[in-house]
């Protein structure tokens, strides 16, 4: 079977996802079409399949990620995400074959890739090399599977082909294809030294700005070990050992649901979906996780410890949040994110006295939408997409005090001189778990209460009224640039009297008229 056929089968396979709610509700014919919406030329946004694969796997910190491509794929895209590592920094290094015209025309792609792997292994000695295929090598028929196989045999370092060239589809599809590569080549290849009933997998979290670490202390206290991770702060071995965990938590997203399902099918690891955004969500996820572990044979006292921890942590965090209430109370928030976050953050903001005037339900499931309705008591404030110009209008008319969204709508808010808080993946601050909620509210406080906004919204000097000025004489002499002569010295009557020599008024003169002795601003 050729590479192209294998890829086609793989795509067909990931589209037919029995664990996906959307997919199950489809007719047989719809299912055949796959779940990717066709991309509309001229009206598409977002990354390609390669991007998705890279996003899903790059946070594996000790692996060397080698992109087989002309420069754009890695050169334009590396070092752009904030997945944090507590170990190796190798994942941040941009490795690429940087294919040239000669490589493509002469068919040197495979040879160059093999040599690149050789140099990489010699230089870095990583636990594995992930080789990403991209559009051009896929098009000219470079067989990266064969190259990886040969390199693995020759160098003794696992070389894993990641077959997700950009043109096959969306970022979401790329996530899934990356998951398939892990299932095919990595998961199940290493056994842990020992297994415990408290081993879990976390799938779909990328430890952006350290979000996993905001939750990890909770797991630590319950004696839960993150055995497998795809791919937050993950080591290669943690992916290879995923089959030995007792439960898989799917974080926030359905992107890697194929991995969770197949872990269950092949190795009997049950999975559940949860989120660490928002207080109630964090508690629910911990409960859910512990319940499954007990089902799997953990000591039932885990449930009691879990409840005790939740009670303690929730009380502690509300105490902290309460102190911040006066800073954010009454603020109107427009939430533009989607999926889970459309409701998981809403309830916490509402409890702090903020008014959520709207939340988008893009990428949200029916279940998510029900929750939004429940929490907001109406669906009037639920919207799918909002065109930037509508969003600009809402903000400009001050119907909202702050926009919370991803980077794409950042400038819509800023150019309307409105505060903006980043809640998507590019953000620089972690907002997960209980402690993350405090950080989030602090970020909202910092955004909406910055004194800068008032200053920026003030009229420019040329927009307001000026006090009456005297009549100016024409310029004397010639213009230094054009050499055009001015109208010569003119005798102009003084239209204002010389200021009275009164010390108390000194310095205020005819301008401004301020009696403030420290007249630095016009109106202070």
């Amino acid at each position, binding site marked *: 079977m050729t590479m192209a056929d294998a890829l086609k089968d793989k795509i067909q396979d990931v589209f037919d996802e029995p664990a996906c709610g959307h997919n199950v509700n489809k007719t047989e014919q719809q299912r055949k079409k796959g779940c990717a919406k066709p991309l509309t030329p001229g009206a598409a946004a977002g990354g390609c399949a390669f991007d998705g694969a890279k996003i899903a796997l790059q946070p594996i910190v*000790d692996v060397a990620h080698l992109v087989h491509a002309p420069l754009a794929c890695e050169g334009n895209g590396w070092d752009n995400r904030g997945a944090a590592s*507590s*170990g190796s920094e190798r994942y941040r290094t941009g490795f690429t074959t940087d294919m040239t015209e000669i490589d493509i025309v002469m068919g040197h792609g495979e040879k160059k890739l093999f040599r690149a792997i050789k140099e990489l*292994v*010699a230089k870095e*000695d*990583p*636990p594995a090399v992930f080789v990403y295929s991209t559009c051009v090598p896929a098009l000219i028929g470079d067989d990266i599977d064969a190259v990886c196989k040969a390199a693995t045999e*020759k160098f*003794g370092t696992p070389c894993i082909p990641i077959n997700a060239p950009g043109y096959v589809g969306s970022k979401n599809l790329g996530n899934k294809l990356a998951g398939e590569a892990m299932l095919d080549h990595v998961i199940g290849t290493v056994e842990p*030294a020992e297994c415990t009933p408290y081993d879990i997998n976390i799938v779909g979290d990328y430890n952006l*700005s*350290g979000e996993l*670490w905001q939750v*990890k*202390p909770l797991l*630590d206290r319950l004696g839960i070990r993150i055995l497998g991770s795809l791919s937050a702060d993950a*080591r290669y*071995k943690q992916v290879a050992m995923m089959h030995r965990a007792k439960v898989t938590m799917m974080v926030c997203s359905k992107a890697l649901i194929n991995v969770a399902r197949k872990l269950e099918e092949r190795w009997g690891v049950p999975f559940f979906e949860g989120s660490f955004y928002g207080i109630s969500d964090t508690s629910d996820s911990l409960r859910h996780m512990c319940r499954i572990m007990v089902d799997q044979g953990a000591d039932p006292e885990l449930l009691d410890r879990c409840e005790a921890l939740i009670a303690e942590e929730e009380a502690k965090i509300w105490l902290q949040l309460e102190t911040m209430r006066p800073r954010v109370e009454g603020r109107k928030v427009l939430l533009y994110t989607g999926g889970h976050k459309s409701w998981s953050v809403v309830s916490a903001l509402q409890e702090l006295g903020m008014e959520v005037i709207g939340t988008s339900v893009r990428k949200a499931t029916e279940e998510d939408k029900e929750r939004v309705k429940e929490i907001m008591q109406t669906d009037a404030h639920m919207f799918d997409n909002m065109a930037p110009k509508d969003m600009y209008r809402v903000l400009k008319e001050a119907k909202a005090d702050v926009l919370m969204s991803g980077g794409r709508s950042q400038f819509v808010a*800023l*150019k309307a*001189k409105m505060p903006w808080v980043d809640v998507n993946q590019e953000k620089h601050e972690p907002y997960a778990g209980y*402690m993350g909620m405090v950080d989030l509210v*602090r970020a909202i406080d*910092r*955004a909406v209460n*910055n*004194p*800068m906004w008032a*200053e*920026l919204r*003030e009229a*420019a*000097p*040329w927009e*307001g009224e*000026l*006090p009456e*000025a*005297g*009549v*100016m*004489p024409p*310029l004397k002499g010639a213009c230094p640039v054009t050499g055009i002569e001015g109208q010569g010295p003119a005798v*102009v009557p*003084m239209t204002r009297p010389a*200021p009275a*020599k009164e010390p108390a008024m*000194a*310095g205020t*003169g*005819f*301008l*401004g008229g301020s009696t403030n*002795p*420290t*007249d*630095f*601003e*016009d109106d202070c």
Partner: protein
Amino acid sequence: MARITHPKRALSTNPLKSSTPLGAALAYLGIESAIPLFHGSQGCTAFAMVHLVRHFKEAVPLQTTAMNEVSTILGGADQIEEAIENLRRKSAPRFIGIASTALTETRGEDVVGELKDILRRRDDFADTAVVYASTPDFEGALEDGWAKAVEAIIDALVPAASERDPELRQVNLLCGSHLTPAEIEELVRLIRAFGLSPIVLPDISCSLDGHVSDDWRGTSLGGTTIEDIARMDRSAFTLAIGESMRGAARALEDRAMVPFRVFQSVTGLKPVDAFIRTLMTLSGMRDAPPSIKRERSRLVDAALDAHFHTGGLRIAIGADPDLLYALSQTLSGMGAEIVTAVSTSQHNPVLERVPAEEVVIGDLGDFEDLARAARAQILVTHSHGRHAAHRLHLPLVRAGFPIFDRIGAQDICRVGYRGTRAFLYEIANTVQSIHHRATPEDFGAAPIPEEFDHVPHAQTC
């Protein structure tokens, strides 16, 4: 309103301030063909000169009356006369600015009287303007010395007028000691953009801007000319930059009835707006030139981009009062918190308006201790702050005098819309340069078990 406090201690550690006569010398260097002359012992001048040279990377003409033991006791009038004579013979300056020092002030010389006497006797000195300012080292700091020198120049060289006949397009620009040559240039550009013609006093933008000249004169090369100073009485208005220039502005008003306005700051959106509004009023222009409107809108955009980094930022600033006020006001307007403010001289009332709880009249020792206690995230002060920065592991934004471990100090511009924009970028980029690699431990989490780590194997290829 900030509380002004003086630490109760005898020991000063790592001075923040530069001396008063040095400030006067710096102001004198803004006069064309000038030589500042310290009335004191040789060392007073040598230290100050080295200080100035290190900052400007320029040869600085600075001379001394070289007081010795005998003249210190018997009086230094002869030394002054001899110094003027020698300077005239060697360099033929058009201006000599004398600044007293702690030595001569402690003795209590009547320099004003003696100088008057000398100049009356020696009519051969007539083509050199000689100005004297009393600037004892033990009173105030650089900013005060500068201000006193400017007031002395106005007193000596601006003709008194009993009636107004103003040139309506001519304005005086009195520059405080905190302005760099590039900043003066920027203000002049703004003023000219409204069709006004400024007389700048003192104008170090022409003398200490760092240029190569075709001759070597042993005097300042560039600066305000004596003739221009003599025309200042006819200006329509005086724009004084920095609260420390209020005295000079008032002196001009007293002598020649020139109305004035003090701009305590020309950094930050609102202060620059106020400056521009004044220029519009003075020029009778209802609108501003397109370039200036564009600069304002670019500053607004820069503020939007910078506020993510300045919001909640904890800043420690140590500077002379006017600079301290201008910078801290701007930063606090951007959501930053001035957790430590240390200044040099209690004479400037603007200190009360510094947006901090407390302003300490102190030194870099106080600055370091306070910044540490207040958990400051960045430091803003002159080059000597590098030791504190090193010990506190914090980045240092260099501002004020002296800056000797970076070149181009004269080109730093933090005024006007453009300068403010650059300043916001500077601060935001400094914040971004703080490299912090988060760890699980930061959040109270246990580290990832070592058993998952890759153990490098012996090379096979």
